């Protein structure tokens, strides 16, 4: 399985130039923008883009069929994809934390590790939830169809949210949420881990009977 995790990172490495440039641009932006420039959006963005690119390289050369013919290939292929995703996420999270820490220190001369940690944790959880939903869809329907599904899903959700916000009065709910907010840092990671586990189990099941 180690080999398969390495494979995903070697795929990332082949595009390393683009990623380094992206990171530098983002770091630069966080320095130059005077206002409150939150770069945490980078985390989900990069993780999704990078991991989707590995899926698309795999699909292009029918890697999934090939790996299935290798010892334990079918079993480890899914596992390694999830592990690679998590390792990558933490790497990006560390990068984002460092850049944020440096830029806030230079600008305000203060360091609030708690705030940074909270921000990163929330973004990390959100990203994992997103990817947990995406992966089983990709494994079930293939990358091409899944891509369309993900776009349609995202738009649909946005549309639905805007529709709901128009007709529903959120004030009492938000008050409740405020209360929830105190526990959020505890609840979110737990929900995330449960979702991740369910997602993994579904993907595994889909892949187990898949024919290539």
């Amino acid at each position: 399985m180690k080999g398969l995790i390495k494979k995903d990172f070697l795929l990332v490495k082949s595009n390393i130039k683009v990623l380094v440039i992206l990171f530098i641009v983002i770091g630069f932006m966080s320095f130059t923008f005077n206002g409150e420039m939150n770069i945490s959006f980078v985390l989900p963005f990069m993780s999704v883009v990078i991991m989707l690119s590995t899926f698309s390289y795999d699909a292009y050369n029918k890697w999934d069929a090939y790996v299935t013919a290798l010892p334990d290939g079918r079993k480890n292929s899914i596992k390694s994809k999830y592990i690679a995703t998590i390792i990558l996420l933490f790497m990006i999270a560390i990068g984002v934390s460092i850049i944020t820490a440096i830029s806030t220190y230079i600008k305000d001369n203060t360091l609030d590790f708690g705030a940074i940690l909270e921000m990163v944790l929330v973004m990390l959880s959100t990203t994992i939830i997103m990817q947990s939903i995406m992966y089983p869809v990709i494994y079930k329907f293939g990358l091409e169809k899944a891509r369309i599904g993900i776009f349609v899903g995202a738009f649909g959700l946005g549309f639905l949210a805007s529709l709901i916000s128009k007709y529903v009065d959120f004030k009492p709910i938000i008050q409740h949420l405020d209360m929830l907010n105190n526990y959020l840092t505890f609840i979110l990671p737990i929900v995330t881990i449960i979702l991740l586990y369910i997602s993994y189990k579904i993907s595994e099941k889909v892949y187990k009977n898949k024919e290539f």
Partner: protein
Amino acid sequence: MMNNILEVKNLSKEYNDFELKNVSFELPKGMILGFIGENGAGKTTTIKSILNIVNDYTGEINVFGMNNRKNDKAVKEDIGIVLDDMFFPEILNPTDINVIMKDIYVNWDSKLYFKYLKEFSLPTNKQIKAFSKGMRKKLEIATALSHHPKLLILDEPTSGLDPVARNEVIDIFQDFIQNEECSILLSSHITTDLEHIADYIVFINKGEILLSKTRDELLEEYGIVKCTETEFKKINDSDLIRYRKSKYEYEVLVENKKEFNKKYSINTIDKITLEDLMVMMIKGVK
């Protein structure tokens, strides 16, 4: 003692538009089996079933005397594969493949792998996508050979290779079976590659095995008789396998040209090639 490296028994699988029907054959130790047939005849589906790339099939497949489903990992450790059109993502390079495969096969031999790369004059640090089709095939073959497998399963390993490269590759295959414990299942629609080196020929058409014999039985005994209509009418139905009528002559596929000659004394009996055989079996009349 186990004599067959591979046994396929009554393999069947249904698709919407295609069916594999009771495919059975055996591959003894130390031999090369040529698996021939048109594109879409069922070669790849059979191979995918052996490797459990497809699951939903009936029948039994034994590799090294073990059931291929129950011993999936153990079986695959000793199989080297070249699959048609399926491989590592092409932005990787041959060195990356070594890094990955080291962790996948217990017996992966990096030294041997780089030796093959050198022998095939393949660059070690160039992305696969910059490779020509022939180079890519050679890389796939090098990858298949580098964990000391006992069985090579090769789906169209020579397609896209020029004649010189095909020759090189066939040399490698014959080297591989110098060890009596090792066998090769080689599928191809280019029959000339197999005509000389394959020990067994299994011919599949529309999902069914039409012929399964040793090379010598097929190519030295079978023959194509060319005769006139009056001569043709004298031939017993049981003595002809297939025939074709053209404007000037009848072509008749017979199982044993020597015996046929004795019985009918028709002198124009041609030696056949696998290609003739395939064409006669598919296009000829029963």
